[in-house]
């Protein structure tokens, strides 16, 4: 049984942030030099959707890995106005400062982020030498046209193959008019017609069984150069990266579509420092115990493995 968790509060740019530290179980103390900072993505706070982050932190601690999770400014219990995931660098730095201070002997931190927190981690990691690895789950790479293309490709095509849709059609419950309007909106957006309104919601498919909703941190539009920023972050960070992908998640599909469409991205993902894992049936937030536990097991194994072998390569990597 790991030791008790600790509640922490620390300042960031004049506001107070709230965090929970899960100290490592003592039996595995030599590994305490590497901790995992869990960063919250989507409209969530530090416990995570269905407590995934709370349970993940406990699972890591039980395996000898200290873990901390926190609310950045404007989220959960932390103070300040609500903010976009593209503007949390100061919060990440303050959290790592506090995490290192709370765990004596800890030398490096792996940032673990789901959805837009994965993107935020990519922006930040290259600027902090203490960050020695990244675990990125279903990274958020949404642009309006990319979203429309992914919806068309992955949602509509799949829906056409589902018996429930055809039952609805047969029983007269399917609203053709609404679906058609939604589809034409998507087609327009997929050709770039919606870019005059960056971040504007692409019309959702009107059918009740719509794809899993997005889990962005806020309704604020992402900056138009999101893909370029992500790519610069990936290139600028020399450490190992674990990419975990849900098979049944539009956000993940949009990320993979972005990768497929670019030679540079394909090259980045093919590098030996990148490991990829896929849970084919999992949804965006890994909302079943089996999926959650699998993610925790992959994370713990990877943190142990790269902590032993990846660190030297990481030290050699030049940093600005």
């Amino acid at each position, binding site marked *: *049984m790991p030791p*008790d*968790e*600790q*509640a*922490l*509060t620390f300042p960031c740019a*004049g*506001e*107070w942030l*709230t965090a*929970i530290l899960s100290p490592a179980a003592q039996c595995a103390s030599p590994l305490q030099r590497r901790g995992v900072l869990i960063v919250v993505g989507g*409209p*969530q*706070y*530090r*416990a*995570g*959707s*269905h*407590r*995934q982050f*709370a*349970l993940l932190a406990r699972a890591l601690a039980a395996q000898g890995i200290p873990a901390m999770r926190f609310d950045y400014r*404007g*989220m*959960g*219990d*932390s*103070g*300040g106005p*609500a903010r976009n995931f593209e503007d949390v660098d100061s919060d990440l730095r303050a959290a790592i400062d506090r995490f290192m201070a709370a765990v004596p002997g800890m030398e490096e931190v792996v940032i673990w982020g789901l959805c837009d927190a994965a993107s935020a981690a990519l922006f930040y990691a290259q600027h902090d030498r203490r960050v020695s690895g990244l675990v990125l789950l279903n990274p958020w790479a949404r642009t309006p046209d990319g979203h429309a293309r992914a919806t068309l490709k992955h949602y509509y095509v799949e829906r056409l193959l*589902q*018996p*429930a*849709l055809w*039952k*609805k059609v047969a*029983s007269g*419950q399917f609203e053709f008019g609404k679906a058609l309007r939604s589809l034409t909106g998507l087609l327009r957006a997929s050709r770039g017609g919606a870019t005059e309104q960056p971040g504007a919601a692409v019309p959702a498919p009107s059918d*009740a*069984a719509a794809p*899993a*909703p*997005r889990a*962005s941190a*806020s*309704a604020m539009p992402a900056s138009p150069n999101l893909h370029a920023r992500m790519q610069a972050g990936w290139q600028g960070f020399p450490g190992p990266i674990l990419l975990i992908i849900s098979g*049944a998640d539009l956000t993940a599909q949009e990320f993979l579509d972005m990768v497929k469409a670019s030679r540079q991205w394909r090259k980045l993902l093919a590098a030996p420092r990148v490991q990829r894992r896929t849970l084919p*049936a999992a949804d965006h*937030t*890994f*909302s*079943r*115990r089996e999926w*959650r536990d699998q993610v925790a097991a992959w994370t713990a194994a990877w943190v142990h493995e790269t902590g032993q072998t990846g660190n030297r390569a990481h030290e050699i990597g030049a940093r600005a």
Partner: protein
Amino acid sequence: MNTIAAAPPAQPFFLDSGAAARFCLYHAPVGACRGAWLYLHPFAEEMNKSRRMAALQARALAQHGYAVLQLDLYGCGDSAGDFGDARWEIWQEDAARGLAWLEQQSGCAAGLWGLRLGALLALDVAQQMAQARPLPGLLLWQPVTNGSQFLTQFLRLKVASQMLTDGRDGGNNSGGTAALKQSLAAGQALEIAGYTIDPALALAIETRSADKFTPPACPVHWFDIAAESGRPLSPAAARAVSALGAAGATVSTHVVAGPQFWATQEIEECQTLLDATIESLPEPCHAA
């Protein structure tokens, strides 16, 4: 000067340790203590979505001289335990523990402030404690009025998810949730939207209804959120309020316009509710 940054931070801590650990966030009152409130959060994902509103209201109450304790119930948020092991009775005890800690810390009598299912729990706890020590007040935000209906709505998440993943059509008849209720009645725990719900907890929720409580002998402020201002209380809320009133409670009702922040896709704030809640509290007894 930024008033929030100038104020001392709310103090996060764990009440007790091990399996008894409950995450708490204490907001000390600014100035002399005018009263105290224990916040009881809503159920499952509604708790996450409303976390920011709870924090905003807690800070506003502290600014107005109230001590506030936010407590995560067993198996919820940052507290010990697994959601699947949570029981209504444990949550009742958690509320009593929170009240005792808050009163000792602040030196003020503490009332209960609950959102959604947390409001139903607050009514239940108030009734339970009525003999030993009547509460000074209840703040109820959009209470769940009927536990059975609430459970059905929660079960619909599973039906919808089954439709999506298996292509099974559970949407056009009530067989979906009825079958799930049968499974619960047969003693089978269900995993719904990432939360495992135990049959005992489901049964406890199913049998609770806001109009069935012995009314607490204290002022009750009932807040409902409507899409537009000027709307009346919803029929279900009106029935519950009149039942409580008929049994002797003094219930003030407030309908404010705003988003249903506990259920919205993004995190939403409802300033009108924050303001209305502060306005509903008695005037401070400042001499000047």
